[in-house]
Structure formats: structure tokens, C-alpha cells
């Protein structure tokens, strides 16, 4: 992926490009709002990562300008503030997701992957399929090896999210945000227990396990090699 990072802090810029590099992405860095805006318009990018606080034109402004000029590139906001309003402001300006500093490399890569995926899926499929697991988005039913599985509404949404991002890592925070619409850290193992319940319904009795836990990082739904 070709990623443009607009970030004024040299340390953070280095950290982010290293993390993205480890994830196989190619990152360019601009260190202020106006040059970032020029660069973002001049070349095609797969994802833009924009810091909220920038010298010159601030991050919110950069994103607003880009969106007004018709850019559809997925944008990820970086913010240091534990500000409760920042998320709403960022999304209103046209950002697709936000990430609060400090973050782990895994969290960053997972968010970027999710954004690329979002832009890649243009046509909405009616069915999601991973191995013999099938989720019908219209009928809202789930089958494993041809057998119907009864899921609670939230378990269904959890599985839907995992399947839409099959093969990718999704973090605990991402699940809280996207599945529960909860934007604070409950500081416990709540997500873990939900995943283990879902795993009980999806994977129990099957030789191939599809839901995998990556310790300290998150979860992934995929066919193991």
C-alpha cells in the first residue's frame, strides 16, 4: 500500500513509518499541513494518515479541504488528546477512522488494513464465506458446514465484522468501537469473553478453528495454514 503520513513530530513519524514498513507498506512523510495537502492532491494514495495537531494548517482543516475537493481516499486521524470531542470532530471533517496516541504497531496496522479493505469492497456482497462458514447478510443467518447456528444479535454483528475483515487482525478496541459503538476502554476482558462465546458456537466440534486470538494484539478469522 502507498501511504501518505502528515505528521510534524519526527519521532512519531519515524515510528509510524517503521511500523507501516514492517507491515509491508510504503510510506511518505510530510511534516506540515500545507505541504501535506499539496502532496495528497498531487499523487494517488491508498490511505492518508493525518495528525490532528499540525503547524500551519491543522489536521481537521487538511481533511476538510481534501474532502471538499472530492478526494475519496480513506483517512486515518492520529490524535494525542484524550479529548472526548476529537473523534466526533474528526469524523465530521471527513476522516474515516481515528487512533489515539500512543498506539501499538498492531493497532495501527489493523486500522490501516481495515481502511484499505473498506475502499476495496465497492460492491456489497450478500453472503460472506470463509471455508465452510457462511453468513447470509440478507437473511441474517449463519451456517457452519451446512448446519444453521443460532446467534444472539450482538454475536451476529461480531461475527459479521470478523468475516468482513477475514484474514486481517482486528483489535479489541476496534471491536468495541465497531460492534458495540463504545468509545472508551472498559479496561477488562469483556471482548475476550464475547469472542470465546462466539468461538464456542462457531468452532466447537469442528476440526478447523477459524477464530484465532493473537495474544496482546487482537483477533483474526481465517483458515489456518
Amino acid at each position, binding site marked *: 500500500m502507498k501511504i501518505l503520513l502528515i505528521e510534524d513530530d519526527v519521532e512519531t513519524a519515524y515510528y509510524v513509518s517503521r511500523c507501516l514498513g514492517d507491515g509491508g507498506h510504503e510510506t511518505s512523510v510530510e511534516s506540515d499541513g500545507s505541504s501535506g495537502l499539496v502532496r495528497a492532491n498531487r499523487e494517488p494514495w491508498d490511505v492518508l494518515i493525518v495528525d490532528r495537531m499540525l503547524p500551519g494548517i491543522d489536521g481537521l482543516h487538511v481533511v476538510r479541504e481534501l474532502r471538499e475537493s472530492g478526494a475519496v481516499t480513506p483517512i486515518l486521524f492520529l490524535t494525542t488528546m484524550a479529548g*472526548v470531542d476529537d473523534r466526533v470532530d474528526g469524523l465530521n471533517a471527513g476522516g474515516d477512522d481515528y487512533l489515539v496516541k500512543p498506539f501499538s504497531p498492531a493497532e495501527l496496522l489493523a486500522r490501516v488494513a481495515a481502511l484499505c479493505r473498506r475502499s476495496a469492497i465497492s460492491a456489497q456482497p450478500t453472503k460472506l464465506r470463509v471455508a465452510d462458514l457462511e453468513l447470509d447478510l440478507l437473511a441474517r443467518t449463519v451456517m457452519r458446514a451446512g448446519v444453521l447456528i443460532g446467534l444472539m444479535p450482538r454475536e451476529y454483528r461480531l461475527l459479521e465484522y470478523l468475516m468482513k475483515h477475514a484474514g486481517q487482525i482486528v483489535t479489541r478496541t476496534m471491536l468495541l468501537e465497531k460492534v458495540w459503538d463504545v468509545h*472508551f476502554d472498559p479496561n477488562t476482558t469483556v471482548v475476550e469473553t464475547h469472542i470465546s462465546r462466539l468461538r464456542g458456537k462457531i468452532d466447537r466440534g469442528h476440526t478447523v478453528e477459524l477464530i484465532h486470538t493473537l495474544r496482546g494484539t487482537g483477533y483474526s478469522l481465517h483458515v489456518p495454514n
Partner: protein
Amino acid sequence: MHAVLTGVSFLVLFGVIFLSTTHFMRHQIDDSVESELGEILTDVRGGGRDAYTTVVRSLSQHPAGFYYLLEDTHRVVLAGNLPALEPHEGVLEWGVAPPSAKAPVAAIRGRGVMLPDAYLFVGWSTHQLHEMEEMVIRTFAWGLAASVALALAWGSVVSGRLMQRIETISRKSRDIIAADLRQRLPVTPAGDELDHLTGSINAMLDRIETLMDDLRQVTTDIAHDLRTPLTRLRQRLELARSAEIDAESLRGVLGRTVGEVDAILGVFGALLRIAQIESGARQSGVAVVDVGMLMDTIVELYHPMIEERDQRLTEFVQSPLLVMGDRELLLQLIANLLENAIRHSPRGAAIEIRAVRSEDRVEISVSDTGPGIPADMRSKVVQRFFRLEQSRTTPGNGLGLSLANAIAKLHDASLRFSDALPGLRVTVCLKSAG
């Protein structure tokens, strides 16, 4: 000002007394002159001019304070002890200069009567009257001078004392600003307006002092609570640097270190969030929200965790319960209360979460059957970093209830802690929106 007022009122009083006194004395003179005149007329009893002459002459020999004059129509004195006068019917008074150099007295007031062929005048010296007037004026002049002087003296004493008190207060204020917030402004036993004011200022200082103490406490607590994990962190890093350690273990050490740093950053994040909520900066998220739906979300989120700990959860919601509030923050409030109940109750405990309407409020309460909080500790649990001895070992940073309380306060509510017999009940009453 005081002196001027005193002077003016004194002058008014003087005027009234002066006028009424002189009026009274003139009246007295007129009365006695009138009766003397009447007596002469009675004595003469219809007699002619000679009879008048005889009576007046005999009276003039022993005047007893009266002055008499009887003159004929050609202003020739027939009898009496006064020089000739221009005949004038009725009251006549003259002052310093008498009509004739032979006048024995300076000023006379009297009454004249036209007889058929003569003019009779009986008068009384106004000397006493003038003396009286003079005396009254003199007395009042002295009195006025004395009272104005007194008023001025008293005024300067009072204002001097006032200035002194104000000076004391402002000096004390400067002391308080400069050094010691524990000092208070002096309040006198008089209990006057100034004391009332200083009382209010002292109350304000009490409040400021409490806030400053809180601030100091929080700062100390933050320093203390972050020092401990940082110290541990440093020790671990020192060990890793000194010991012969292979790459794999080093990675492990670094992993745990990152975890601890994350925990410290989490504490900072929570503190910032509390501060931001307490400052009331967040306003954009306020909308009508259904407390029932928030509770369902949280209960659904925590349900597996509760079951895993063999705890039983009862949810009672009297839907719909609409309040004006911030969805995200209220979610966190309910989550923090429920998480607290789960964490501080033993396995198998019963937890109840309910939301009911009570008049114009929506009452959310979370009760557990855990160890509860002793009554004397209840006011302290919302303080940042406060943790009960019994919960030192359970995970948590001592900020959950502070955050919950800050959110409640933002919504004009507060956390109430009570005994759930057994266990703890935390209640928050939000203002209903419909």
C-alpha cells in the same frame, strides 16, 4: 457630611425655638399692656381729659415697669413718662432709636388708644425681649459650634476607625495572597456591614483552601501512584541491562515494560478525561438519550463476564427513560458502576442494575452483595486514586468512580452510596427529559 447634617438640623431647631419664644414674649407684653390700658379706662370711667391726666400722672409716678403717655391732639404731652409720639391706634413698637432724646429706654412695645380729645399710649420695655433674643441666639451659636465640632470629631473618629479596619483587611489580604491561605480576615464582635462582608470573604477563602487542598492531594496522589510503577519499570530495565540475557527473554522484558508504560499512560488518559469532563468543556455530545438502551448495551457487553464469574445479574428498566445527556459519557458511567460491582463482589454474588423514573428524575442504581463500603469511607471513594484497603489487590487504578462522579456532575447529578444490605448500592439521579 455628618457635621453638615447636624448643623442644618440644629439650625432648624433653633429657628423654631427662637420664633416661638419671641412670639410668646411679645404676646405676654401685649397682654399686660392691654390689661393696664383696660384698667386706666376703667379707672377713668367715662371721665374727661382731666380725669385721664390725673390717672396717668399718678401712675407715671410709680411706673412699675410700664411707660405711659397722654397727649392732646396737638401732640402736647399732658401726662406720662414718655416723650410725645405720633398718635397711632393699636400696637406700636420701636427699636433702638426712640422718637425723642428724652426717652429713658431704648425700645418699647405698647398700644395706643385714640380718646375723643387725646391720645393714650401704654408700653413696656422690650429690653428683656431683646436680651432674651440675644441670649437665645448666643446659646444656639455656641450649641451649633459645639455640636458641629463634636460631629466633626466623632466623624473623624468613626471614619478613622473604618479606614483602619479597611487597611487591616487589605493588609491581611495581601498577606494571604503573598503567603498563607490559612489566614482569615479579622471579624469584629460588632457584627456590622463590614463584618458581614469579611465573613463572606472568609467563607470564600475556606472554599478556595479546600480546593487548593484537593489539588495538592491529587498532585501528591498522582506523583505517588505513578512513582511506584515507574520505579518498578526502572528496576526491571536496569536488571535487563546488567544481566546476561538472551534476545528472547529481552523481548519478554520489553513486552512487559510496554504493558506497564501503557498502564501509566492509561492513568494519565483517565486523569485528563476526568479533568476535561469536570471543566465542562464537552458540550457537543448532548442529546436526548434513552437510559434503557444504554443499560441494555452495557448489560449485553458485560453479561458473559458476569456469567464467567458465576455472578447473577438482574436488570430492571422501566422503558422508555429519556434524559438529556451525552450518550458516550453516560455509557461509560453505567459501565464503570457495573464494572465496579462485578470486580468488587465475590464469585456467586448477585448484582442488580435498575433504572426507574421517580418524579422528574431518572434513577439509575447498581447494587451488589459484595463487601460494600463503610459509611465513613463513602465520601472518599470518588476521590482520585482512593482505594479501600480490601480492594488494593484487585485490578484498577482508583479512577473509575472519580470518572463516574465527574460524568454525573456534568449531568447535574451526583453519585449516592448506600447500604444494599448486604453490599453496596450506587445511585445516580439524572434529570428526566420527557
